[in-house]
């Protein structure tokens, strides 16, 4: 099985923006690039893990509706971060692991992009010192 983030696109993007505020500036091709990277990473993982990730995103969206009366996508990034921070600091390992997994996927998708590497000033080059001198 290979998971498609299409079924949870809005809450997933809302979570990405909470984890990496700059991702809000991505255009549609940029988002697709990010999501393809995440989908590729998930495809290498067991089906059960893929399903858990999708389920977690849905639960977070539901939690946002219950606590704030709106889905994740309608909350401010700060409100989303507040939810995630609470879960990240939870006494329940399962919740902490879930947030850690989501943030890892968001970072993978965003920071694997060549544009991002350039934007943060990462300049590693196979030519090494020669490329800098």
């Amino acid at each position: 099985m290979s998971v498609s983030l299409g079924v949870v696109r809005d809450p997933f993007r809302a979570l990405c923006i909470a984890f990496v505020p700059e991702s809000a500036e991505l255009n549609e091709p940029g988002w697709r690039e990010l999501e393809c990277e995440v989908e590729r990473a998930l495809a290498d993982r067991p089906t059960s893990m893929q399903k858990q990730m999708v389920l977690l995103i849905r639960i977070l969206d539901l939690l946002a509706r219950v606590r704030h009366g709106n889905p994740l996508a309608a909350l401010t990034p700060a409100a989303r971060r507040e939810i995630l921070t609470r879960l990240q600091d939870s006494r329940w390992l399962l919740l902490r692991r879930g947030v850690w997994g989501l943030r890892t996927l968001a970072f993978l998708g965003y920071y694997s992009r060549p544009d991002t590497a350039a934007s943060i000033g990462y300049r590693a080059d196979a030519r090494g010192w020669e490329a800098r001198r």
Partner: protein
Amino acid sequence: MNRIQADVVIIGSGAGGGTIAQALAPLTADGRKVLVLEQGARLRDDEYTGVESEMARALYEDSGGFLTEQGTLTLAFGRTYGGSTAVYTGTSLIAPERVIRGWDVPDLDHDDIARRCRNFAAQNHVHLLPDDEINDNNRLFELGCRRIGLEAEQFPVNLNGCRGSSLCNLGCPNAAKMGTDRVQLPAAETAGVEVVTRAEALRIEERAVIARVSRPLDGEKGLPSAWEPGEYRIEASAVVVAGGAVGSPALLLRSGFGRLLPRLGEGFTCHPAFILVGEHEERITNDVGHPKSFYLDRAQEEGYVLETCMYFPFITAKNLTGFGPDHSALMKAFPRLQMILVLACDRAVPGNRVSVSGKGVTRVHYEFTPEVRSSLARATVMAARIFFAAGAVRVHAPLASPPLLTRGQADQLDQRISADEFLPGRTSVSAAHLMGGCAMGRTPEDSVTDAWGRVHGVPWLRIGDSSLFPDSLEINPYLTIMALADRTAEALMADSADLFDS
């Protein structure tokens, strides 16, 4: 199922398997067939692009993020021609005498290990980098240590023709790192050893290995296997398992050896680690030059080692605590970041082990002991002191609350950093020094093999990799793995008359 006859089958081509392949190569001159099965692919030189996500996928198991059963630790280990020697930084240290003595394995002494390590160090061009090839990230570590009265030591590294790409952990794009993929395996192949890539050992039977050869997926890096895709039964007089501290015990457990060897899979250690970053006011050279030139060894005194390091954008982001604007601000400071890796010297304890599920899936169980948490906290304090002494204005410390420390707080580190802040599942921890699972020792009751990698009670089955370690090594393990693998090969050669005639 395809059937193949061989004299020796070696499973794995990393520091262990590659070393054994070279040592057994003389057998081929006598008409013996020596095979190496490697699960990963062999990449062409031009496929080492240094692009983080694609190289991680091509060279590592689970892209370098193999999750433990608890989901609180990721393990990075190579799955390619050359195993983890293709993706490490080439640091080449000889094990401390006290560690080998502490292992208390009969017929294993430090002098023998050190002698073999020196031989491999010479073979693999191990040397100290000259001063003009050391970047600011490393210089600042050495400077910070000196300013607080400590002496950082320089890592000997196995480089030949290093251009300073800084991309060691993504496979050297300049073929300058002298791992088994560049030295031992090519020598073995030239002598007549056959290395079969994309060949996964599924299980071991009586003097036989069942393996599956796969074809490359669409767009996947690496050459096709020399063998046609399909399942193979490879019959051999001797089988040497060198699949690493996760792969070797898992394969043996999957093959039913757990009934004979009650200690199989136990004693897993891994030097759990995380990174700290220090932010400087000016740009420094960090993503150019060899990433790991210095270390501070506090293993004996305080149970940790600090090493210089420099990772790539995603790995860096993943290893920093938290998320949101503070995390982003730190990532945007990348050209001004100094980085230190802190590693805890964990001990083999009950429960930390490798197992397989009923369906044969590999599982690694790992709990952080109170001693490991304390070591990581002490290491964090020390690393923060070094950063500030080197001139950093801010330090990101995973066990500080909040994690960002300013220079004004440099005298409050003991109060601000605490093991109580270590929260599994929140604190990002990873490990790349994977050890144990098929420990050496005296009897089947206390170990899996003797001091020469002979599996207790199974004369045709040998082990030759880091799974042999009875406990943590407390330093980077690659040369010690080669030394132990060399001993495994030597014992096999000594026993060859019996093995091949039976």
